[in-house]
């Protein structure tokens, strides 16, 4: 990140920046308690100049929004209107209470599944089952049946759309947890309780295509300036633990010390 470079924290939508909580950057595998605002402030201080540079030097100055053909806006409005109409078209009071297609019921199952499989302790077989459940839930969420035809204050339409987004995020999370066969930061695998820098000192990058399909890749981390060491948070007895370590055989392992992530 170079100071003032227009692309600092710019998303893949040009001109759309992700500052603050939404990027969860800078903290690596674990955000220490009470450090979130630090990164929010950093984004404002450091990357604010990037927005300024972008506005002055790039598209906004050379091709302002007013010069974009109206048809381009209309196309997006049409696309979103069609999504809305599809949801409103699904309204069927007779079937609305069927948990198979009710978004609130689907979201509740999603919450229960993610709580069980993807929170504090994670394990290969459970994560695989979770991904199978998510596929089933996504299938159901793709053909929802709503109970509210109203064009005003219709919360189920918003909720149905949010549920679909939650499912994409849930899948990204579960896939990442499955593929990262080690324990690091707040990610604890009972079948791989040790940190494995040889394989996994990498950033997980999840991409979501236009159809909501997620794919996973690992990107190496540049550690030229600061050599990685064991994170012991000042604890003396475990400070001697060498890093990197080979993965330990699967089996029960002690709970890791966990830092709050607020």
């Amino acid at each position: 990140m170079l100071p003032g470079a227009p692309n600092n924290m710019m998303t893949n939508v040009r001109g759309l920046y992700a500052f603050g909580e939404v990027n969860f950057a800078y903290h690596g595998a674990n955000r220490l308690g009470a450090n979130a605002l630090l990164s929010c402030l950093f984004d404002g201080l450091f990357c604010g100049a990037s927005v300024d540079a972008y506005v002055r030097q790039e598209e906004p100055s050379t091709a302002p929004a007013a010069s974009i053909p109206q048809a381009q806006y209309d196309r997006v409005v049409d696309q979103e209107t069609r999504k809305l109409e599809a949801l409103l078209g699904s309204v069927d009071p007779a079937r609305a209470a069927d948990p198979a297609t009710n978004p609130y019921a689907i979201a509740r199952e999603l919450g229960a599944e993610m709580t069980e499989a993807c929170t504090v302790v994670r394990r290969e077989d459970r994560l695989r089952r979770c991904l199978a459940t998510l596929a089933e839930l996504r299938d159901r969420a793709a053909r929802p049946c709503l109970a509210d035809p109203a064009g005003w204050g219709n919360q189920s339409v918003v909720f149905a759309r949010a549920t679909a987004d939650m499912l994409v995020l849930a899948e990204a999370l579960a896939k990442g947890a499955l593929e990262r066969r080690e324990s690091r930061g707040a990610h604890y695998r009972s079948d791989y309780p040790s940190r494995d820098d040889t394989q996994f000192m990498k950033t997980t990058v999840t991409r979501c295509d236009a159809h909501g399909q997620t794919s996973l890749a690992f990107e190496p981390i540049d550690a030229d300036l600061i050599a990685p060491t064991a994170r012991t948070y000042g604890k003396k007895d475990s400070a001697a633990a060498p890093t990197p370590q080979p993965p330990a055989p699967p089996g029960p392992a002690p709970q890791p010390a966990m830092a709050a992530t607020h």
Partner: protein
Amino acid sequence: MTAHSPLGNGTHARPAPPPQGRRVVLRIKRCDGPVKPSYWQDFSVPVGPNANVISCLQTICASPVTADGRATTPVAWDAGCLEEVCGSCTMVINGKARQSCSCLIDEHAPRDGDVITLEPMSKFPVVRDLVVNRDRAFHALRRVRAWVPIDGTYALGAGPRETPQTQETRYALSQCMSCGCCLEACPQFNLQPDPAAWETSFIGAHAISQARLFNLHQTGSRMAAERLEALMGPGGVSDCGNAQNCVKVCPKKIPLTESIAAMGRAVTVHSVKKFFSLA
């Protein structure tokens, strides 16, 4: 997502049947949109341990059927934090304004078949069902400039020192979440859908108390006179009839009548000074 016992059982089977146990009746005052007529509907909701009003409303959305078995629309409600700090879920429960997220079913309807009534607050325009528009409560905060004037464009130097005594007073006041309970309970604060009238209608206990909070802040006190001016005019602190309902319903136990008295005195001093052109 919710404190309610989840329906999912962690396998990819269909959801488990609702938890065995008791049901309560949610009697809800509904409304399809602004100025549309209100109507009541009963819902029989299965409740597990730790259920609260919001989790019951979610259960209704997952199965929008009335107690007499008729299909209906899901009930609309508002919520944010789910931990009684944002105020957005405020509604009238069994006749009293409070937050629905912290309203536990076991406390308010402990037996099988008990009834809980839910109504939107009556002092704000209804958006839909239990959702109201609290814009006027926030407008009142703008009237008294309930903020500290720093915009980050210049260095202010070291932060002001604060005594433990002021800190203690201010901490209590700072817990206000603009929920509107005090306004719902106040006989002087009445429904006013027309924003043009907000500038001169009663400002409400919460805003008076926030004016005190920011006048007690060393940097905030730079705008003390402006806040007192706002409280001097029509709809200001003298419109309070001292009914003391507000302080009884405030979920954060904010000493509202103390604030009203303090600001009443400050306004008097300010107007005397102004009369002699000292302020």
